[in-house]
């Protein structure tokens, strides 16, 4: 096998795209945190990206089939870590999602994404039916649902929701009766209002309300959306220039180096910058999908598509939030937002995609 792997087979295009996106991210983090307490964030991000490339390389080295074989172990570890987060986790902003000290901590739920990708790939590649039967679907949904619920009660609805597209795309690819899909949608439509009152926390309900009408709550998350839209709009065609955006520099944007980084980017780089950045994301996504299409087996295809689904969902929800077309869920923009766990987890997943690519000529 090793003979088939060479530097030439590496997905260089993907690496170039990723580097470009990360570079834009670092630049924006630098610009958004000047004169704040987070001034070191940009070079810390650089270190995380460097760590990410190492993670990517590691994720490439070990044959993904070997990894798939260990899914049960990973899954068990994930559940254990998530439970441990409750016991020894660090509470920041009223949410217990981190392990470590307030200044150095990792977010296990980010790495669980990776396990979910592997889990779905393993489960579906072993499935021997033409279409997924309801019973099997429930089994898989249950496996994905357990960590999801654990994350949801941290509470971190945003991250928990990112597990759904991995499952959904997997199921879609595996084949599924559309009647079932309709039925599930109907049930979700019925359950949603109930869970809105019973499951969602006050602040989450507030976010839904302010998504539907930002002016209702101009000081909470509605404020964030309004300020984000002002920042984006003020950027206009060419942007206001790096470190020149008043919305970003005046801290009118909430956490402009994290969840609202694309808003800051849109203010300072304008529509042109937005097209370039979204173009890079789109090309990256297509490159991942292309790897899915050339995968040597189903498992590889599911892995790539799981990662693609996750990336697409992240971009949709985060960037949609920035322009007020999605509710504020508090999930980061992969590869751009400042934050270690998210970067390393994303790079690990890209490593898996590369892993699949390097092993496409098997048989």
């Amino acid at each position: 096998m090793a003979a088939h792997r060479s530097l030439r087979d590496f997905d260089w295009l993907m690496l170039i795209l990723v580097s470009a996106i990360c570079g834009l991210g670092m630049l924006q983090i630098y610009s958004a945190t000047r004169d704040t307490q987070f001034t070191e964030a940009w070079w810390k991000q650089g270190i995380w990206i460097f760590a990410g490339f190492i993670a990517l390389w590691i994720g490439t080295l070990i044959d993904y089939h070997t990894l798939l074989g260990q899914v049960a172990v990973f899954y068990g570890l994930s559940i254990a870590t998530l439970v441990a987060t409750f016991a020894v986790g660090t509470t920041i902003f009223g949410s217990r999602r981190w392990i470590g000290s307030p200044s150095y901590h990792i977010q296990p739920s980010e790495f669980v994404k990776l396990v979910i990708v592997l889990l779905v790939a393993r489960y579906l590649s072993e499935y021997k039916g033409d279409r997924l039967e309801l019973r099997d679907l429930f089994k898989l949904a249950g496996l994905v649902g357990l960590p999801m619920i654990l994350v949801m009660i941290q509470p971190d609805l945003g991250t928990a929701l990112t597990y759904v597209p991995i499952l959904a795309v997997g199921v879609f690819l595996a084949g599924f009766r559309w009647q079932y899909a309709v039925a599930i949608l109907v049930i979700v439509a019925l359950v949603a209002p109930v869970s809105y009152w019973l499951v969602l926390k006050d602040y989450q309900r507030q976010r839904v309300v302010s998504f539907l009408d930002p002016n209702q709550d101009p000081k909470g998350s509605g404020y964030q959306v309004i300020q984000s839209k002002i920042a984006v709009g003020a950027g206009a065609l060419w942007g206001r220039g790096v470190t020149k955006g008043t919305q970003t520099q005046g801290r009118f944007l909430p956490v402009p180096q994290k969840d609202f980084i694309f808003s800051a980017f849109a203010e300072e780089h304008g529509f042109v910058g937005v097209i370039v950045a979204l173009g890079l994301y789109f090309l990256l996504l297509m490159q991942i999908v292309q790897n899915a299409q050339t995968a040597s087996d189903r498992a590889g295809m599911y892995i790539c598509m799981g990662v693609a689904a996750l990336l697409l969902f992240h971009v949709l929800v985060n960037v949609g939030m920035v322009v007020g077309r999605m509710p504020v869920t508090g999930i980061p923009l992969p590869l751009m937002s400042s934050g270690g766990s998210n970067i390393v987890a994303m790079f690990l997943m890209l490593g898996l995609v590369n892993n699949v690519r390097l092993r496409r000529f098997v048989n």
Partner: protein
Amino acid sequence: MKLPIVREDDPGANTLLRDDPKFASQKIAFFQYTAIGVFLFLITGFWDLQIRNPEVYQERALENSVKSIPVLAPRGKILDRDGRVIVDNHSSFSLYLSRENLKMEHLRPIAEGLNLDYDSLVARVQRFQSRRAPTYQPIPIKEELTPGELAFVDSHKDLATFPELEVVRVQHRLYPRDGMAAHVIGYVGEISESELDSPELARFHQGDIIGKDGIEREYNDQLMGVDGQKRVEVDSFGNERHVLDDKEAIPGKSLQLTIDLDLQAVAELTLENRKGAVVALDPRTGEVLAMVSRPAFDPNLFAGRIRSKDWKELMDNPAHPLLNRAIQAQQAPGSTFKPIVALAGLETGAIDDSFSVNCPGGASFYGSYHKCWHVHGTISLHRALVQSCDTYFYNVGNRLGIDRIAQYADMVGYGHKTGIDLPHEAEGLVPSSKWKVRNFRERWYPSETISVAIGQGATTVTPLQMASAIGGLAVGGMWYQPHLVKDAAHLPPARRSEINLENLGKVLSGMCGVVNEGGTGVRAHLPNVVVCGKTGSAQLVSNAALKAGLKQTQDLKDNAWFVGFAPRDNPEIVVAALFENGEHGQLAAPIVRDVIKAYFDKKARLAQPLPQVTRVPSGLLQAPPPVASAAVPPTGVSEDATAVNP
């Protein structure tokens, strides 16, 4: 694409076929189209905001981050003639509401947080809004912020709470205590709505602090600076990030008055707890050395926006503390009018030195009896002035007739404004036959002249007019316009009258006798300087009314006047004092004396050489121990020490 048909009973083929990753390529294509859809959906979002109407958002970003902060120009100081500060400023903080991001619903919590009356705050904001002033002009809502209020503002001025709050450092007016010189200085206040409507004040803006009375009003343009403005970029916490542009304020110019604080203080003290006025002039220039009106008010109450309670109290006070009695009290001059009548008699030839009258304590004219305050016997001009004999002047007046009296009263400046640089000066009244016809459509009866001759009847003058009139006579018939500002430009030339100086000398020596020859003004006598003057007691009600049983209450007691100048030759100061309800002019004399004394005491003090200090011979300091002197070479210090010694 056709999926391979797989049979359940063929596991081998199944595994192989099922592991073909191409089985889902159609669905992957669907995923790709979905991705394209998602990206287009997102891009249209940016298109909407950034391309279709970016101006809206650019403006809102500007609203967020740019604040206009007024930079208020401090008013000029007001100094006395020696350059001592009378009116200063002190630094304080005022709270403004920036109108660029003002929200009406914030007013209630702001009012509660700062202990303001909500309704009047709303009314004020609406008043400012209604005038269509440019929105960068913020609305001042509270002055002299306490540390507690500053803390409230600081913790609430962020964008999400009350971004309209803005603290501006201002220079507040600081006036002397106890109402000293209050009427001269006047006060400042916020420009009122009616003032804004008047054409001469239309150039000011709402919220401007302008001079409302006194010097503050008269010289407002000089004292008032030009406010600047600063546009700053702020962050979401309301903290200044950097200055976009800065139009600096031009501070107002200082103003030097002719007032002498020493004299002013003495005059204030002599009038303490009385109702009246004192005016001291330099008759050689018209400079006002002191001007006091009592009761006074505290101009510090007005320094900003006066509270309505204080205002009401001042307005309702029966003693009218806001009235500047020195230029606004129009009272009958009483006997102080006699020198002018005497001069008129001499000048017109109605009387001469030999003219004398017998005073049996009164005389009858035109069928009615006029009393004198004393029985003087046979009396001529000099003694009539010294003793202030009414009977004598009844006769002089009767010989002169009203119009010749009026002519000379007019000559000394009675009946028209002196033109002093203060607002609202009263002009007094000099009755004449013309005046009678014009105002009453009736001819003047000679019987009415009798009481005018002793300064009663319709005649009224202000203390300033009196000081100016007598001062002008004292310097030989030259009337300089009274003024309060040292470098007064555009002063009209002195008014000169062709008076026979011999006649004038007779009148003035009569006034000298009043003080120095046992006359009615002996209380004004000073040992070192010859004071001349004239008392006056002006009745507020006629004797007839008193006889009719009207009780003589405090308010109806006679006004006491004294006007004096010194020295006899080349007078340097003339002082007029009005002591309302003081009953007799003799009581006003000490007031004038004290002010004149203060003037000459100060002059003597300044003329005196400074006391000699015994010089310590320098040799004593320069005798170091012989050993040290040999060892230490001459240094800069020791050289300096020698240089000091002559």
